[in-house]
C-alpha cells in the first residue's frame, strides 16, 4: 500500500508542478508586449529518492523551487549608459537644428549681408558722389546691423526656449525618482519574504532606463534597494527616499538646476536629454554668440578706422559709422549704425566729393584679417563651419550610438524577451506532462480499486 500512496503523492506533485509551469507560460504570454518585462522561468528539480524497502531507490518526483525572472544586470547597465548618451546627442541634434537656420542660405545671414554691403560699397568706385549709390550702401549697412541683432537675439531665444524643455525634464526626473524609491521598498519587502520580486524589478529597471534617458545616472544596488545618483554624485534615490531636483530662473534669465541640498549642479549634469540640452544652452550657443560678438566688434572697429582715413561727401574727415559697446561681449546685440545718411561714407581721400581714393581702404576691410586672424567673411565662414560641425557631429554620434543601443537591446531581448513561439511550444510540453501525470493518477486509482476488490472478494 505504501508504494501506491507514494506514487500518488509523486503524481500530484507532478500535476502541481506542471500547473505552475503553465501559469508561468500564461504570465509570460500575457506580458509579451509589456515594456521592460523579463520573461520568467519555472525552476523544477527532481526530488531525491527513497528506498521503498526492497533495497531499490526510486525517485520522489518533481519539486517546484520557484519562479525566477531571466535578466542580465550588466546588459541593463550598459543599456542605461548608452540610453543616456543617445538621448544627450539626440537632444543636441534637435536643439541645434533651429540654430542652423541663421547660418544657411544665400540671403538673410550675416555673411550674405556683409557681402552685399561690401559690393554696394564697391559700386561707389565708379560713381563716388552718387547719392543713390551711397544710400544703397548705407541701407545695406543697416541690414547688416539688423542681421547681427536678429542672429544674436535668435540664438538667445533658442537658449531660453530650451529652458522649457529643461524644466519639463526636471519635473519628469522628480516623478521618476519618487516612483523608483517606492519600488525600492516593494522590492525589499518581496525579497524579505524570500520571493523573486520579478515584476517590481522589471518596473524599477524600466523606470531607471527612462531616468537614464533624461540625465546621466549611476546606480549602486544595496540590500535596501537601488541607490541612484546623478553623474556628478548628487543623490536622487536612496532606499525608499527620493531627492528632488529643482530648477529656478537666475539673474541671467536662464534656469539653474539645484540638488536637494540647494547646491547648483547645472554645470556638472551630463548625459541624457537634460545633459544634451544643457550642453547646447550653456556651451554650444554661448560659443557661437561669442564668435558673432567678436565678428561684430572686429568688423565695426576695422570699418570705423578705415572711415577715419578718408573724408565724407561734405569734405569733413570720416567719422565712425558703427557704434559698438566697450566690451566685445554683447557687440552683436548692440552694434548700431551712427549715421543713416549715405554722405557719411568716407569714400574720398582728398576731401573732394568725386574722389574715391579711400574706397579701397573701406572695401579692403572685407578681406583684411581681424583680431582673430580671419577676415570678416572668413570669420563668418568659420562660424558656419563650427555650427555645421556641431550639428553633424551630434547627428553622426546619434546614429552610431543608436546602432549600438539597438544591438544591446536586441541582446537584452534575446536574454529576457518573451518569445511567443517558445512559450507556445512550452505550453504544449507542459500540457502533455500534465495529461500524463493525470493519467498516472487515474492508473493508481484503478490499482487501488483492483487491490480493494481483491481484498473484499476474498
Amino acid at each position, binding site marked *: 500500500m505504501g508504494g501506491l500512496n507514494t506514487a500518488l503523492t509523486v503524481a500530484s506533485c507532478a500535476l502541481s508542478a506542471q500547473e505552475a509551469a503553465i501559469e508561468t507560460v500564461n504570465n509570460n504570454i500575457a506580458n509579451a508586449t509589456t515594456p521592460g518585462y523579463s520573461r520568467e522561468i519555472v525552476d523544477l528539480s527532481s526530488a531525491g529518492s527513497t528506498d521503498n524497502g526492497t533495497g531499490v531507490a526510486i525517485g520522489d518526483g518533481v519539486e517546484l523551487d520557484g519562479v525566477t525572472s531571466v535578466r542580465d544586470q550588466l546588459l541593463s547597465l550598459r543599456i542605461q549608459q548608452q540610453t543616456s548618451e543617445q538621448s544627450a546627442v539626440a537632444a543636441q541634434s534637435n536643439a*541645434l*537644428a533651429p540654430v*542652423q*537656420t541663421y*547660418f*544657411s542660405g*544665400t540671403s538673410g545671414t550675416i*555673411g550674405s549681408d556683409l*557681402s*552685399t554691403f*561690401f*559690393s554696394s560699397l*564697391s*559700386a561707389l*568706385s*565708379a*560713381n*563716388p*558722389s*552718387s547719392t543713390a549709390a551711397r544710400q544703397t550702401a548705407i541701407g545695406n549697412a543697416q541690414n547688416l546691423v539688423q542681421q547681427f541683432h536678429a542672429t544674436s537675439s535668435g540664438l538667445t531665444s533658442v537658449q531660453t526656449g530650451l529652458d522649457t524643455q529643461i524644466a519639463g525634464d526636471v519635473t519628469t526626473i522628480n516623478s521618476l525618482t519618487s516612483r523608483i524609491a517606492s519600488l525600492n521598498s516593494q522590492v525589499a519587502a518581496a525579497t524579505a519574504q524570500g520571493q523573486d520580486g520579478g515584476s517590481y524589478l522589471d518596473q524599477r529597471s524600466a523606470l531607471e532606463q527612462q531616468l537614464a534617458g533624461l540625465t546621466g545616472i549611476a546606480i549602486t544596488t544595496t540590500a535596501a534597494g537601488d541607490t541612484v545618483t546623478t553623474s556628478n554624485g548628487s543623490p536622487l534615490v536612496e532606499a525608499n527616499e527620493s531627492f528632488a531636483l529643482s530648477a529656478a530662473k537666475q539673474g541671467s534669465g536662464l534656469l539653474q538646476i539645484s540638488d536637494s541640498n540647494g547646491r547648483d549642479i547645472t554645470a556638472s549634469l551630463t548625459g541624457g536629454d537634460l545633459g544634451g540640452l544643457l550642453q547646447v544652452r550653456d556651451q554650444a550657443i554661448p560659443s557661437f554668440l561669442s564668435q558673432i560678438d567678436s565678428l561684430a566688434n572686429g568688423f565695426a572697429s576695422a570699418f570705423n578706422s578705415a572711415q577715419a582715413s578718408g573724408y565724407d561727401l561734405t569734405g569733413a574727415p570720416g567719422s565712425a559709422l558703427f557704434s559698438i559697446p566697450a566690451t566685445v561681449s554683447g557687440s552683436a546685440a548692440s552694434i548700431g549704425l551712427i549715421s543713416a545718411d549715405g554722405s557719411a561714407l568716407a569714400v574720398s*581721400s*582728398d576731401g*573732394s*566729393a*568725386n*574722389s*574715391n*581714393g579711400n*574706397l*579701397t581702404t573701406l*572695401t579692403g576691410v*572685407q*578681406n583684411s584679417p581681424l583680431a582673430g586672424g580671419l577676415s570678416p*567673411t*572668413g570669420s563668418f*565662414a568659420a562660424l*558656419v*563651419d*563650427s*555650427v*555645421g*560641425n556641431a*550639428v*553633424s557631429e551630434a*547627428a553622426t554620434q546619434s546614429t552610431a550610438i*543608436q546602432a549600438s543601443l*539597438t544591438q544591446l*537591446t*536586441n*541582446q537584452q*531581448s*534575446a*536574454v529576457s*524577451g518573451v*518569445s*511567443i*513561439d*517558445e512559450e*507556445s*511550444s512550452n505550453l504544449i510540453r507542459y500540457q502533455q506532462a500534465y495529461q500524463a501525470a493525470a493519467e498516472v493518477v487515474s492508473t493508481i486509482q484503478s490499482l487501488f480499486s483492483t487491490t480493494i476488490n481483491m481484498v473484499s472478494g476474498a
Partner: protein
Amino acid sequence: MRVSPNLEPDVLAGMQQSQADLQKALQEVSTGQRVNVPGDDPAASAAMVQNLAESNNNDQYTENASSALGQVQTADSVLTSVVSLLTQAVSLGTEGASSTTTAADRQTIATQIQGILGSVVSEANTSYAGAPLFAGTVDTPTAFTGSPTSGYTYQGNSESNQVQVGDSLQVQVSVPGNVLFTNASGNVLGSLSQLAAALNSGSVAGVGTATSAVTSAIHFISSQHAVFGNSINQLNTQESFLSQEKITLSSEATNLIGVDTATAAENLAQAENQNSAVLAAAAKVLPTSLLDYLK
C-alpha cells in the same frame, strides 16, 4: 543560443532609416542641392560663404568695369575731338602767319580761333554720369569757367580716380583737366589764347610761335591717348577675366552644394527600391508565428 524574439525594433529601425534616406534623396532631387543646412556638410557650407562673397564682388566688379569703360571711352573720344579742333587751329594759324594775309583777315581768323577755343573748353567740360570728366576729383558743374576773351579758370584739382575692378586691381579712369589742357609741355588752352592774341595784334612772328605751340599741344594730347587706351585694354581684359571667373565661381558652388540631376535621380531610385524591400521584408517576417501551424 537564444535569439531576440522581437523583430519589431529591427524592422522599425530599418523602416525609419530607409524612409529617412528616401526623404533625403527626394529633397536632393527637388532642390537640386546636396547641402541645405550647414549640418549637411560643414566644410562645403563654410566654403560657400566665401564663394558667395566672391561672386557678389565679381558681379559688382563687372558693373564697375563696364561703367569705367564707358567713362574712359568718352574721355578718349574727347581727346580725339580736341586733336581735330587743334589741327584746324594749326591750319588757321599757318594761314594767319602767311605774309599775304591781311590784317582784317587775321582778325577774322582770330575770331575763328576763339570759336575753336570755346569748342575745346566745351569738350573739356564734358561730363559723364553727371560728373565732369576732367575736374580731377572735385564735384563741380564744369571743369573750366570763363570765356575766350577773359580767359579760363580751372575749377578742379590735380587728383585722379581709379576704379576698383578686382580685389586688388584698380584702373585709372581720369586725368585731371589741368594736366590735360593747361600742361606746361603742351598747353592747349594757353596756346590757343596765345594764337588768338597774336592774330589780333597782327604779329606774324607771334602767330608763328603760337602756331608751333598749338602743334606741340597736339602732340601732347595725342600722347595722352595712350593713358586712356591702356585703361581700355585693361578694362577689356578684366571684363573677360571676370566673366570667366563668374563661371568658375558658379561651377565651384555647384560642386560644393549642388547635386547633378543624374546622380540625384539614381539616388532616389535606389532609395525607393531600398524602402520597398524593407517594407516587403517586414510584411514577410512580422506575421509569422508557431501558432499558425499549431492547428
